[in-house]
């Protein structure tokens, strides 16, 4: 997830303050790892802050929103409430990008890969790097 930040540029208003990675749903191990990351790394000059709630909270202003597989099953609501907010949406499960996520984790041949929708990323106000397309297992657009 941290590696993804190299390939996107957030709008100016998101380049100030803390870089918030918001995890929606329960995944204790991921939270532990992300908190370790936050203690060691920055995105540009921004410190990383990890937020986590069991269900989606539209008031959280985040640069990345990751939806756990359980939450990814019903994501329409999340995307409709976050258009043009400069947020990179990451989901996990079948059809995530078709529902509005920019990146969606999928398992192919026992390996964790991702599908990518450049259009979805652009729609949320992110500037994208075309090199990223080559890294995706599937490009949706």
């Amino acid at each position, binding site marked *: 997830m941290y590696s993804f930040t190299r390939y996107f540029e957030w709008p100016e208003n998101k380049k100030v303050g803390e870089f918030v990675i918001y995890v929606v749903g329960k995944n204790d191990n991921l939270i532990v790892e992300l908190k370790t990351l936050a203690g060691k*790394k920055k995105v540009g000059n921004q410190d990383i802050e990890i937020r986590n709630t069991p269900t989606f909270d539209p008031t959280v202003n985040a640069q990345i929103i990751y939806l756990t597989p359980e939450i990814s099953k019903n994501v329409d609501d999340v995307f409709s409430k976050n258009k043009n907010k400069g947020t990179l949406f990451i989901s996990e499960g079948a059809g995530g990008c078709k529902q509005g996520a920019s990146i969606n984790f999928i398992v192919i041949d*026992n*390996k964790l890969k991702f599908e990518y929708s450049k259009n979805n990323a652009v729609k949320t106000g992110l500037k994208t790097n075309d090199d990223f397309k080559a890294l995706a297992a599937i490009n949706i657009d």
Partner: protein
Amino acid sequence: MTKWRNKIKILLLGIMLLMNVGVFAQVDKLNRAQHLYEVKDIDNAVGCIDSIVRHPETKNDYTLWSLRAFIYFEKYKRGDRQKLNSPLRDSVVASVRKSMKLKPDANYVTQNKKLITTIASGYYNLAKNLLQDSIDDVKSLKAYNKYKEVFLLGDPTAVLTAKDIEYYLAVGSLFSDIFINDNANLKAQKTAKVALLKVLELQPDNAAANINLGLMAFNVGVNLSRSMGFDTDLTQADIIQENVAKLAKQAEQYILKVYKIDNANKKAVEALWLTYRMLFDDKKADEFKQKCIELGIKVD
């Protein structure tokens, strides 16, 4: 003519007398060696028996070679038991070998076998000690091979497959534990793998060998996953994932063999749960997580 005949007779009698004196001298020495052995004057017994067995008149007497074996065994017992290379032990074995070659009677065969079994057991204990106390697999294997060689001298038709499995499993288990606790110890990994594969060669369904090989592959995968830092680029991460998946598949192959034979084997069930997680196979991971819970295995 009669004069010459008499001379020859006297000469022959002389030779026979001398020969008898020689034989009597050897018999006397044998009695002395036997006595020295009984009174535990082993150093002198060694000198005495060695001079008899070299003598052309007595060198083919199996009783002497057996006695020599017992005398040397007494000396070996006093200070060489823990030595991998002991000329005294070698002399015991060589003496028994020679005695057996000379076709001894049943009583001597029994005595020889008893002695050789004791020597073989000593080698086996030494192999175990070198493995468990000194963690020296190379010397341990030498001791184990000597055990087999000597044991087969006492019982040439013996089949040592069960002993081989026991020994190589001990080596494999010890070194796989070392490797699992210290993934950087590649020598331990290699030693364990060679030993466990040897077990599977002899007994393909051996549960412990399969589990240990599976857990080792799984641990290499875990270690490889952990080598990915936050800065690892996505192309590199892909290569690492490829290797992790291969290792997890290897682990699955070994552990499934055990599970198919015994579906309540706790180690196998837990290892399969973790392996399927590593393979991102949620369905199977959940299935084995449930089995873990049913078997009372903690899954937190």
